[in-house]
Each structure stands twice: as C-alpha cells, then as structure tokens.
C-alpha cells in the first residue's frame, strides 16, 4: 500500500521535473548543450526508416529538375561535356593558383601540398523538420564525410556544403539557402575561362544575385556584356570553400540589371538549373586528407575514385 503510494507520488513529480528541466535546457548556452546534437542524430536515425521512403515519394511527385527530361544519351553526353569543361576550368584555375604559389614561394611562404578528393554518391533522405532547404544525406562520418565537404549533382552542379556530420547522416546546406551566405563566383564569358567576378547572395526565390565586376578591372574592353544563359562558376579565392570546389557550376545568368546601390555597376541574377533543395541524390566531394576543407592555400581536385560517380 505504502509502496503504491510512493510510486504514485514519484509519478506525480515527474511532470513538474520534466518541465523544470525543459526550462533549464531552453536557456542553457549552446557551449554547454552541444552534446545534445548526438541525441538529435539518434532521433534522425530512428525516424529515417519512415521519413526516407516518404521523402523519396515526395521528391518523385515534386522533382528537382525545371527542364523536361532529355534522351538518356544526350543527357550523358551533356554531363560528360560539363565535367570536362569543369576539369578544364579547374586546371586553368589551378595553373593561375600555381603561378601565385610560385610568386608566394619566392617570397618564402610555405604552402600545403596538393590533395585529391574522394567522391561518394549518397541519397537525400529528408530535411530537418523546421529547416526549409537543408538536406539530410545518408552518409556520415563512418563513410569519411567531413564538415565542409562539397555536395554536387550531375558531376559539376554545386549543391552546397556539409554543415553538420553525424555517424550515419550529414546535413548539406544548399548555396541557395539564405543561411549559406555570399559566395564568390565568376560569370564565364567564353570557353577560354575568361570571366567577371561577382559576389552572389542567396535570395528568397531560389536565385542568387550580386554586383558584377567591372570589365575594366579585369583588363577587358568596356563593351563586354554579360548575357542571360551564361554559366556562373564558383571562384572563391577567399578560402571559404575547399579548393576542389572551385569552378563547379553555380548556375546560369537569368537577368542582368542595374545595381540600385551602385548606379555605375551592374547586378547579376543567377539561378541553378534545378531546385537544389529537392534533389534526391548528391555526390559528396570529400577531401582525402585534412587541410583541404579549411584550405590554406591549396588543394585541387583530382577525382580519385572511391565510390565515385553519382550522377556522372
């Protein structure tokens, strides 16, 4: 009798205790509550078996591609063309970088050796319940995924980068998400790799926009024009992105307009060819050694296989 009464009393205290704990955790500073991320990842794993199939179904009825599908052969050839174009531009960019390294070496600055990347195809299983746009990808630290690894589709189309890694899953923040911040890009004027730099900021409608570099700053004639349809690639000389991500495709120019803040400059609006928050599979480009992700001068992308290929 007394035992039953004690159990009832303990149960009745459980709810106020849980609410008190919730209040404490609500206001606990993040530096003391980082360990809760592990429970978050555990919850993702538990919900994954049902969220994954539902997400696949959702992505089937609401696909990422904006264009009608092309025949398979044409699609494959286009992908190959894009890949080789990217490789060509990467090599050009690498060449320029090496030239800069030589200059820096001559000044006595030490630089990291060149490191390759590993490619890993992984399905997108869901998105966190309150975050529009962030992709949960079924590949985590067990498969070697690191924070700041780069996610692409179709071999060269930049999706975003990994912002959080769990044992079995990771989160990819698309470049079109407002939280991703600005990215340094380049509008490609020709196949030789000549382009104008632009600092693109994500908008609310899946586009990125930002001021365009003046042609005179690149030593180009002033009549050089940026047209809709021109390809925009990631430039990023600031080191915010891994070196292997350089020259990946950000999107296409959809509009060029006068910059309201700087009357003499133009502003470019760029849109990826597909909705980055609705892709069903991504290829993660993982730096094979530490150093590339935080890039202090350099590593470029040799594609060294691994589980290579998704979408290529």
């Amino acid at each position, binding site marked *: 009798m007394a035992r039953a009464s004690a159990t009832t009393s303990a149960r009745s205290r459980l*709810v106020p205790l*849980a*609410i008190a704990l*919730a*209040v*404490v*955790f*609500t*206001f*606990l*500073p*993040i530096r003391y*509550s*980082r360990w*809760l*991320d592990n*429970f*978050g990842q*555990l*919850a*993702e794993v*538990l*919900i994954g*078996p*049902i*969220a*994954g*199939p*539902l*997400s696949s*179904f*959702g*992505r089937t*009825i*609401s696909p990422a591609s904006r264009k009608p599908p092309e025949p398979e052969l044409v699609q494959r050839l286009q992908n190959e063309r894009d890949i080789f174009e990217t490789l060509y531009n990467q090599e050009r960019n690498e060449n320029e970088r090496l030239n800069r390294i030589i200059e820096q070496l001559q000044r006595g600055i030490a630089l990291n050796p060149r490191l390759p990347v590993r490619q890993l195809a992984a399905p997108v299983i*869901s*998105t*966190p*319940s*309150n*975050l*529009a746009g*962030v992709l*949960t990808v079924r590949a985590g630290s067990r498969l070697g995924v690191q924070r700041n690894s780069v996610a692409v589709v179709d071999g060269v189309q930049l999706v975003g980068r990994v*912002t*959080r890694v769990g044992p079995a899953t990771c*989160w990819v*923040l698309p470049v079109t998400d407002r*939280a*991703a*911040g600005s990215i340094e890009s380049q509008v490609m004027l020709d196949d030789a790799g000549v382009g104008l730099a632009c600092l693109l900021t994500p908008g*609310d*409608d*899946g586009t990125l926009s930002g001021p365009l570099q003046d042609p005179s700053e690149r030593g180009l004639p002033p009549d050089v024009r940026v047209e809709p349809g021109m390809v925009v690639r990631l430039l990023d000389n600031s080191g915010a992105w891994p070196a292997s991500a350089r020259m990946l495709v950000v999107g296409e120019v959809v509009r060029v307009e006068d910059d309201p803040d700087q009357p003499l400059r133009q502003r470019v609006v760029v849109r990826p060819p597909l909705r980055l*928050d*609705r892709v069903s599979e991504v290829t993660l480009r993982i730096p094979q050694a530490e150093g590339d992700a935080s890039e202090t001068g350099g590593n470029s992308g040799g594609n060294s296989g691994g589980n290579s290929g998704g979408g290529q």
Partner: protein
Amino acid sequence: MSWIAFAVATWVCFGLETGLRDALRLGTGGVAPSFVVPLLCFISMHASPREVVRAALVLGLVADLTSAQALVPAEYATIVGPHVLAYAVAAQLVLALRGVVISQNPLTLGVLSVPASLVITIVTTALLTIRSFYDPVAIAPSHDLLQGLGTALFSGVSAIALALVLFPMSWAFGFHSRPPARFFSRR
C-alpha cells in the same frame, strides 16, 4: 491511453512531417503543414489531462530533437526545451477548449490545430528570441511568426486529412472518452 499506439502514431507523424515537408512546401518559403500538431490536438481532445501533458512533453522533446536551430555563422545546434514548453502550452489550450467543441467532428481537429500551431510558433519564437540575446541563434522573429501563421493555416488542412485516419483508429489509443460516434460509427 495506450502508449504503444501513441509511440507508433508519433513515429508515423514525425516521418510524415520530415519526409513530406519538402513536397508539400508552398513556394520556396518555409510554409509547410505539420502532422505532429494535429496528433497533439487529437490526443489533447480525448485523453485524460495528465496523459495529455505527458504526451505533449514527449512530442515536444522529439520535435526538438528532429529540428535544429540555425546559428550564426552557418551552423546548427539541437536545442532541447522550446518545443517541449510550447507543446505543453498548446496542449493546455486544447484542454481548455475541448469542452466547448464538438469532439466527434473531424473538422474540429482542423480548427483546433490552427490556434495550437500558432501558440507553438509564438512560444518557440519568444523563447529563441530571448536566447538570441546571449547565444548566436539566427532568428528573425517577424519572418518566423509570419511563416508560423502560414504553417498554422496549412496544418489545419493537414489535420482534417489526418482526422480521417486518426478518428477511425481511436479505438487503438484506448481513450476513456469515445470520440467518433457521429461521423465514424463503431460497429
């Protein structure tokens, strides 16, 4: 109330919420229906007050664990607490209202899900705004509240759809008060 049925329903509703969120999202914003809030309202309409509070705490905890708070710069953290408290307050709202609504009508679930979802948005936004004073929490209160209003209205629609499944299944929850008598007659 059967806690096994509750666990299964929780698992399914969170699966629906995270799995179908992108497909059902309106435009490129964050307005998408909730499937968990209707479940909370359903339980709050029919279970005993003590069970309702416990269920709300569990649902809030899972909601906190499956969502993440954006930080500045682009980083994320799991914050436990805001949804737990918000779900508890929303459950109290439904408990207070359930005496004056027709609990047998599936439309009631849709109608109650709207204010419940709004309360959840207001409470979580308020708590995170307070937190943003000392933590690098990326929060835009006006935007989040406006988005929450859209989500609440959309959740009302999803709640009506969910009611068509939950009400006939209410026998599995073992509620003492029998909800579906008029619209879903038991044979």
